């Protein structure tokens, strides 16, 4: 049987959690811009009673009624994001301590937990894409003597706060680091995420674009003679994937493939065997 938990900001229901045997789904009609405002909400039960948010050891968050009886339990990942699934693959939830002293840089003295809505699902999408890129790179370098090491690191972005994403070290046969693929962030201007290939000599940015990438719409002229022109921000972007910006000023991007990646790697680090 499904149970619904409206998430309210004041009198307004911004989203609803639906708990079923298959998991907890987050339903909403919020846009990405609205989610970027990071609205705080409180959970309610179906009868309209506000529930309290508690965090227990073992990375579990529960919504309990006034008697302390948990109505819903949710898992929490290492970055504080709750285990809910947005069917639109956009929104997510995390807990936030609020209360007296929570404004500005003052420490929270006597706080309570609220829920924060945000475009957090984009982080999971970004991490998946970064993981796919690392697998691809690992395959491309299999025939070389270079060694690959995945290491944890954390990123801090205005919208998402701090979260974990791995970096990929590319080392010589004797274990000396030659270059690193560093996750930069899920939120960059004009793209859906960025990873930098960093070596001792240089740095190259690799960006993820959806199919065709962003489009620019321009209206030229006015009245009856007005012409609506639409063009792609980057000419080389066709299918969804990781791209290297060949020339950002000329709007040229090239899809990352084995030959290009090896050329970039040679350019950022002194690796001669490629």
């Amino acid at each position, binding site marked *: 049987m499904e149970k619904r938990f409206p998430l309210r900001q004041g009198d307004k229901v911004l989203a609803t959690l639906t708990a079923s045997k298959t998991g907890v789904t987050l339903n909403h009609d919020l846009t990405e811009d609205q989610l970027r405002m990071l609205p705080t909400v409180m959970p309610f039960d179906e009868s309209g009673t506000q529930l309290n948010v508690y965090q227990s050891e073992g990375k579990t968050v529960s919504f309990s009624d006034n008697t302390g009886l948990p109505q819903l339990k949710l898992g929490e990942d290492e970055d504080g994001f709750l285990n809910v699934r947005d069917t639109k693959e956009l929104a997510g939830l995390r807990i936030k301590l609020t209360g007296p002293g929570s404004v500005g840089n003052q420490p929270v003295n006597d706080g309570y937990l609220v829920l924060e809505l945000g475009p957090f699902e984009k982080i999971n999408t970004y991490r998946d894409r970064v993981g796919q890129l690392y697998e691809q790179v690992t395959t491309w370098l299999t025939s070389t003597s270079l060694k690959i090491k995945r290491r944890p690191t954390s990123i801090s*972005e*205005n919208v998402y706060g701090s979260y974990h994403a791995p970096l990929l070290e590319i080392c010589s046969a004797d274990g000396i680091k030659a270059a690193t693929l560093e996750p*930069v*962030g899920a*939120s*960059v*201007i*004009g*793209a859906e995420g*960025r990873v930098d290939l960093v070596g001792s000599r240089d740095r190259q*940015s690799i*960006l993820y674009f959806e199919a065709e990438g*962003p489009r*620019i*719409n*321009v209206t030229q002229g006015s009245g009856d003679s007005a012409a609506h022109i639409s063009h792609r*921000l980057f000419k080389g972007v066709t299918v969804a994937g990781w791209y290297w*910006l060949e020339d*950002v*000023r*000329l*709007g040229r991007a090239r899809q990352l493939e084995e030959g290009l990646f090896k050329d970039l790697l040679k350019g950022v680090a002194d690796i001669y065997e490629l």
Partner: protein
Amino acid sequence: MSSDSLNHLFATYRRLGDCLKIAGRAVDTENLRMLEGTEFVGQPKIQAASWIQETRKTVDDLSVVGLWALFERYVIEYTQERAVPLGDTEPVDFGERLHKKVEGEIERWRADEILDLFKGVIKPDQIGIAKQIKEYRDWVAHRNPKRLPSAQTEPKSAYNILFTIVDALERT
């Protein structure tokens, strides 16, 4: 050089500030129509905003350098003009050589020395602030950590004081 040159440079500085304001708004709203063909594309917003802030600071500093350069040229030319009567000194050959020597030397006088000539014509506190602007200009140009400026200077206050001095000299 006249006060018009200072006005022109300061107006250009203000308009450049407006352009950076517009760039900041384009970054805030991720307006790709505005940002297309720029290096802001592909940057995290916080990085792009930081570039704009850094650019603003550099533009501020270079504007002070530019305002000082125009002002310095003005006071040198003003001083050289006032030295023209030296050429009428008798005997004639001596007078001409004296004038040429002084005219050439003025180019090499330290700004502090030239400014001190204007004591009594320009208020002492204004001369003092002009010297601080010169100090700041030197620091921007040379970044010598052993010669830190006694005061930070921003273009608006530099313009105000340098314009006031030039305007007062133009009225003499």
